[in-house]
């Protein structure tokens, strides 16, 4: 199955990164990617004449959301660095705050943000992957961005005090 191996070699890392950003855990991202690729591999004869990437991406995102729903991962992950870590540079602080904020989002909002701003998909493409309307994508993205802005604002306020 040369086509499949070529596809994994070419796009596997990008898909792993999407999986990681959507779920927030390297271990789970690897697991979800492997499961999605297995499914694609079993159906390869049917999908290799099309671009298989959207198919695999859709499985990844929906698997992550489904798992998160089942486990009820809705807790806010604590932000901030351990006290013994040296003070990071400003851009590292910003990155930490944004990534903590991303992980703290509900799974669907997180998926919308990753697909829109990491994968650069359109609202329509994002809606198709998530099986919802473009209106829902817009509202979920707006809520997520508002939440991230609030988090950033809090960080700026606490840094200033």
């Amino acid at each position: 199955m040369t086509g499949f191996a070529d596809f994994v070699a070419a796009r596997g890392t990008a898909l792993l990164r999407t999986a990681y950003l959507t779920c927030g855990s390297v271990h789970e991202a690897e697991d979800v990617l492997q499961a999605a690729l297995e499914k694609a591999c079993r159906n390869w004869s049917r999908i290799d004449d099309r671009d298989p990437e959207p198919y695999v991406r859709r499985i990844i995102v929906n698997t992550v959301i489904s798992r998160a729903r089942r486990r009820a991962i809705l807790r806010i992950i604590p932000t901030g660095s351990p006290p013994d870590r040296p003070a990071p540079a400003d851009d590292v602080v910003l990155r930490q705050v944004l990534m903590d904020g991303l992980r703290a989002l509900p799974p669907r909002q997180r998926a919308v943000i990753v697909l829109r701003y990491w994968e650069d998909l359109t609202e329509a493409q994002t809606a198709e992957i998530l099986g919802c309307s473009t209106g829902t994508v817009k509202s979920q993205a707006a809520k997520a961005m508002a939440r991230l802005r609030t988090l950033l604002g809090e960080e700026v306020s606490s840094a200033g005090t």
Partner: protein
Amino acid sequence: MLEHDLKAAMTAETAALTIAPDLAERVERRARRGRWRTRLAALLAAVLAAAGWWLVPNLLGTPAARPDRMIDGVELGHLPAGLVRQPDLRQAEGEVTITTARWIHLAGESRLERSVNVSVARGPIATTEAWRVYSGEDELDAVVAGHPGTRMRSPHGEFFYWAPAPDLAITVMTMGEVSLEAVVAGLDY
């Protein structure tokens, strides 16, 4: 701009992530094993069906699944006495099939006193309107018998909806003196 900062943060966060060099090989191996497992399971199922569905419980000493309590592969374990099954309702939305079974108990003058409704949706449920309506922008708000899902209460009864797998969603509705928790906990799928 936040979008720009976010993309930069995501890029930096994932820069060190790469797949294992043997990932494709491992996946192909597992997929081959999975295909054989599926074929073997189908073969075994055919053999068992030919031998008669009663043979297995007799040999193993376990009770057979009760057909009057089966809803598209899901078995209702808890059913209060006196409830009578009504004809099933079958619907389809795209590739999703939904089977709804209903057990009712009528009091005097045909007044509905108690009921249990169980709907089983199979297929890519995330694409259905029902999924959007129930899970839309809401997140999980309840856990019933260990299942995170969506729960609603109305003057007429209680409703719980959850998706144990990407291609399976179950809805339970109870009315009257029927415990929603007991019905949900007793489902076997």
